[in-house]
């Protein structure tokens, strides 16, 4: 047991050192690395419902978008009138000082984490009674509705979009902005990982699994499934909100349906990444997100115009050949490496039983 832990320690410290050194090693790729961190966070937290709890949610994009709008609004609203900032054609320009910028984004991210969590609780209370496909379709509507509603609210820019505060001009180093957002996203990634890892070792995960495997039985065993389902969703919302807030600042421009409540891309990607890597595993979503990001960044530009066709093919290949994801596939091939002990007799007995 001790040996395994030591190995883990080496692995984790290696990854953290790599993570900390990455923006300096690959200076030109900072933005892509930031995206990678955010994608991993989204996939990993989606996995909590989709993988562990068996509730396929397309609604996590709602919390991501909310986080984005909230961070930007708080960052502006703390120091300037928000309505004048977003008014298109407004003649005034407002400039954040360095201190204002960082204070704003700090408080903004805090709000972006808390508010979506509360909203997830409220919505979860209302719709987590739905099961299976009904839940999936209901959450699909959430993201779309939110996009349309946000596109009509003048104070956050409506259809014009919302330009988030530019990085303070007093910091002259052009690398600073990329580094700031990278480390911010890396921090959130580490937090999310520690949190998910903690959940993986807790009773909470077993309950989520019980809900996935047979909700009625879980209930019959005295588990208040509703409560756990809501809490599970709130955990995801917390990190989705943070991820959204960071992305808003990084992109610099929020559009209601294309950037914030971007169910067509981010909303689908997070599901795809988790499935690609293997849902219901700790490392699956991380590996899935990394592979997906490399695939996207590497291949996309070589097949201009056909990238979505390639993506479609990828989805088909994953679903047909790796229905359990890469981790699931590896696990099936090399179960002993996942610490599973196979009792040959037992296995044969099971085959015969079928």
């Amino acid at each position: 047991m001790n040996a395994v832990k030591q190995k883990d320690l080496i692995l984790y410290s290696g990854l953290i050192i790599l993570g900390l050194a990455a923006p300096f090693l690959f200076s030109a790729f900072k933005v892509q690395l930031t995206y990678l961190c955010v994608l991993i966070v989204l996939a990993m937290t989606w996995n909590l419902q989709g993988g562990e709890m068996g509730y396929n949610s397309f609604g996590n994009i709602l919390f991501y978008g909310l986080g984005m709008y909230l961070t930007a609004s708080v960052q502006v609203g703390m120091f300037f009138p928000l309505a004048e900032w977003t008014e298109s054609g407004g003649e005034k320009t407002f400039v954040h000082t360095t201190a204002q910028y960082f204070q704003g984004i700090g408080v903004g991210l805090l709000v972006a984490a808390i508010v979506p969590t509360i909203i997830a609780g409220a919505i979860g209370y209302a719709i987590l009674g739905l099961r299976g496909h009904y839940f999936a379709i209901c959450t699909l509507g959430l993201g779309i509705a939110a996009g349309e509603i946000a596109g009509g609210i003048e104070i956050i820019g409506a259809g014009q979009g919302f330009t988030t505060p530019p990085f303070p001009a007093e910091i002259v180093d052009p690398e600073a902005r990329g580094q700031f957002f990278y480390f911010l996203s890396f921090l959130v990634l580490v937090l999310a990982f520690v949190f998910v890892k903690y959940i993986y070792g807790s009773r909470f995960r077993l309950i989520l699994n019980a809900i996935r495997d047979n909700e009625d039985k879980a209930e019959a065993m005295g588990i208040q499934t509703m409560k756990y389902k809501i809490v599970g969703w709130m955990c995801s919302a917390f990190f989705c909100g943070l991820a959204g807030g960071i992305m808003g600042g990084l992109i610099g421009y929020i559009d209601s349906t294309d950037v914030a409540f971007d169910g067509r891309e981010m909303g689908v990607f997070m599901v795809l990444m988790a499935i690609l890597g293997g849902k219901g595993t700790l490392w699956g979503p991380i590996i899935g997100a990394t592979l997906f990001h490399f695939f996207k960044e590497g291949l996309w530009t070589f097949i201009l115009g056909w990238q979505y066709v390639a993506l479609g093919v990828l989805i088909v290949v994953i679903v047909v050949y790796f229905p359990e994801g890469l981790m699931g596939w590896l696990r099936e091939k090399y179960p002993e490496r996942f610490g599973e002990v196979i009792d040959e007799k037992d296995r044969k007995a099971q085959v015969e039983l079928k």
Partner: protein
Amino acid sequence: MNKLVKLFITSISAITLALVSFTSSFAKVDGEYIVLGSAISLTGKYSSNGVHTQNGYNMAVDRINKMGGVKVGGKSYKFEIIYYDDESNPKRAAQLAERLIKQDGVHYMLGPYSSGLTKAIAPVTEKYKIPMVEANGASRSLFTKGYKYLFAVLSPANQYLEVAIDLAVEKNGGKPVRIAQAFEQDAFSQDVRLGILDAAKRTGSEIIIDDKLPKELNDMAATLAKVKATKPDVLVVSGHTKGALTAIRQISEMKVDVPMLAMTHCDAAKLSKQHGKNSEYALCASQWHKNLSYKDKFFGSGKKYDKDFKKEFGYAPPYQSAESSAALLVFKDAFERANSFDRDKVRDALVDTEMQTFYGNIKFGPGGQNVAKPMILFQVRCKGDTCENKVVAPTKWASDKFYHPIPKWSERG
């Protein structure tokens, strides 16, 4: 587990090596080439206009390269453009701008298609102090952010249809009119809307319908039903190419009678070709028309551009292509006047731009917008089955008289 960890570490180090070796960036000026970068919508909802833009850029690059290229420091250079597909998505566009600048080492940018995407890219180019000449971001809010490296060869969006309201009031004997309007929920169309609001205020006109259209635009029957019921004097619709197509399709299907129909993107949508007589009498805002009498030595006149473009790409150039071609003429001119590849010198040269191109006069205002060129309005008119866009305003360029009011559907053959 042991082997897995090893595999993991090996793959990570492999990726690390690969990335490090890729990081070496290209030069801004590569041998005899000046490398420009652009994220263009080749897929997604703006794909048709994205292609118009790209064709415009390519046409100008070929022409300039063929005619001696760009002369800097006594040496002749050629233009080359690195394109990426931004998928009509601002998030992707911002990311690609970063990629062009940081990884491909591009030092000069050409704009994307649409205001929303330009809005997403401008903060990036501004951060790295990369001069960007853009030809397709007309939203007024682009020019009030104090951007120093953004230059637009086109007139701001709020000016698109303001003139149309003035025209309607004039036809109404100087009395205020009743306006119905429907705009797509995107940065550009919403800015056109603001222009109409200003014009309505100025003329004391009343807005009786003010609808928003979704981005994936293919139905506006609800708005048109209201128009049928309330009978406004003017109907204003703007929603890029899809907006123009949807409006004409449904107006003709539902036989909506309205005295004046003002739109944007008629020529990009090839309305007169696709919908023929159904699109007749539509009044359209345009940045450019081939009949205008501007000239330059690369493309000659608008008519010649029209002819050459048709030969090259097989369709008549919409203004999106023309303004995109003009963007390269501006860059060439600035490089030659700066006589240097220093970004700030090029930027200063851009500020001082004052030139005429086949597309119109170009001179940048303090916010980076082109202040030397008016918008024009044309009207679709048909002779038999062939329909054409005829310039009707401003009077200086007008080739035809503005036909008003639009005859009722029951009277149209």
